[in-house]
């Protein structure tokens, strides 16, 4: 999902913690009590959450780039305003999430540095290019749709600030998803060229969207602890299946086809069965070798570097005013 990089193992040495405190902590989680910033928590819980929330925040921020690519070319004033508002929402999600991470004792600047240096992960999906206007529809429908599948359970995550941020975010994501599907609907019912544009976007985004849920359950190294701590409530494969089941009929309703010859409805399980995912591609994109990884990081770094003098000016000005007020 937005936090696929969590499937890598935590390399820090395990902290020695008091068994009684750990037991009491787990009991609170089991009783569905929320953990708040000032509560005691195991180091590994704190580290896992920081990594997950930071990756989620970075994904929102990097995610502004592929869609931002079409703001100046949106085909009507209504679409232009809606897309700009959507990308702005994603930036807002990044802000709440950085704030949620800060409650765990890590500064936003530190997290941003990790993103800019290439040391932090963000969702693989944003390393694919937006080539036509239909990609804006496909992203809203599929990417926001996949994000919702993952984030609705996160609204019940054991860490209070993250859960509350997710409630706010989910409301906006479902609006984005409806808006994306509506763009696809108009294209699918439009001219021949528009229908072809919609089909091409689905062809290109479908598999990368399935990869958003992360590696298959057998390979995920982080799920056990996250499940015990009620950070994660469904497995990668469960969420992926939910997404496929919800999305395939929506695509068929538009008269679009999915780029998967193995896709079929399984009467016995009442699920849509899908073909094999190309995990080599997934690992390559996560490693930094996707179609746009370098462009995305370069764009973030450029914005950061070009803005350095502005941030310095704001700090210098605030300092001058503080001194003046104190004098």
């Amino acid at each position: 999902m937005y936090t696929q990089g969590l499937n890598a193992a935590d390399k820090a040495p395990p902290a020695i913690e008091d068994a009684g405190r750990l037991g009491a902590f787990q009991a609170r989680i089991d009783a569905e009590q929320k953990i708040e910033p000032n509560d005691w928590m195991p180091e590994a819980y704190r580290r896992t959450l920081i990594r997950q929330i930071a990756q989620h925040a970075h994904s929102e921020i990097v995610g502004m780039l592929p869609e931002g690519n079409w703001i100046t070319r949106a085909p009507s004033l209504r679409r232009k305003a809606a897309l700009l508002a959507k990308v702005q929402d994603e930036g807002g999600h990044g802000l709440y999430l950085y704030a949620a991470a800060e409650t765990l004792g890590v500064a936003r600047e530190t997290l941003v540095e990790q993103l800019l240096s290439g040391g932090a992960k963000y969702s693989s999906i944003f390393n694919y290019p937006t080539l036509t206007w239909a990609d804006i529809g496909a992203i809203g429908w599929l990417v926001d749709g996949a994000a919702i599948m993952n984030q609705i359970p996160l609204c019940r995550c054991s860490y209070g600030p993250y859960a509350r941020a997710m409630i706010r975010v989910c409301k906006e994501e479902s609006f984005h998803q409806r808006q994306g599907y509506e763009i696809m609907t108009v294209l699918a019912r439009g001219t021949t060229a528009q229908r072809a544009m919609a089909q091409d976007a689905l062809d290109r985004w479908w598999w990368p969207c399935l990869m958003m849920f992360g590696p298959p359950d057998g390979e995920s190294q982080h799920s056990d602890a996250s499940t015990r701590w009620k950070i994660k409530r469904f497995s990668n494969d469960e969420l992926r299946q939910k997404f496929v089941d919800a999305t395939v009929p929506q695509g068929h309703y538009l008269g679009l086809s999915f780029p998967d010859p193995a896709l079929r409805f399984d009467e016995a399980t009442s699920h849509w069965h899908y073909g094999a995912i190309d995990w080599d591609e997934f690992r390559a994109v996560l490693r930094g070798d996707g179609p746009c990884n370098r462009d995305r990081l370069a764009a973030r770094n450029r914005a950061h570097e070009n803005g350095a003098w502005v941030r310095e000016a704001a700090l210098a000005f605030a300092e001058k005013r503080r001194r003046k007020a104190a004098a």
Partner: protein
Amino acid sequence: MATTSIAVVDDRLFAAVLARADDALILGHRLSEWCGHAPMLEEDLALANIALDLIGQARLLYEYAATIENAGHTEDDYAYRRDPHQFRNILLVEQPNGDFAHTIIRQYLYSAFAHAFWQAMTSSADAALAAIAAKSVPESAYHLRHAAEWTIRLGDGTEESHRRAQDALDALFPYTGEMFAIPETETDLIVGGILADPATIRPAWTASLDRILAEAGLAKPQSTWMQSGGRRGRHSEHLGHLLAEMQILPRSYPGAIW
């Protein structure tokens, strides 16, 4: 062919409304170019907010222009199917974003005018314009506050920010004269109380400028030479590129609805 440019009627009120819509759209478009690339996340959000307000104002004005023209045109026809020489925005708003200082100074110079303009327009004899003005006043007040605060911060920040802000002010100041010029076609509208008289707006604009520039430690450019042409459709080289990008889809796909 739906991709060809439209012709618009020659009507004074229509032209005046269209010109203000063009100001708002072109500046909103410019600000939207920042989205995802601003110096800090908070500014990505703020610039997008201002862009959204301006695009919203443009849409209301185009909608009103369409009712005046009564030729079956829509907001999108005006935005996407006119050629550069048919746009009537002032040159200031089409100037490229440049660095953050250029964007802020451009916004400040425009918003200081627009805020006073929309305030005056709330008592327009034209009820539709007065209603659009009432909606625009709080928006332009926010735009002005945001840009003025940044102008002060940049002017009185570091040596570099001061230099950049002063450069931006020097470069953009010659485009401010056009805000106060009265095209011959608008004199009747001013006399009739439909359009605000720019002469009555100038004192508020000048007072804001004097106060903000003094606080920012920036020098008001002394040059009295002013660049104009936008209201007559004589634009800078920049507008053609902006429109080529903005209009590409409706121009490329005849008859398509998006």
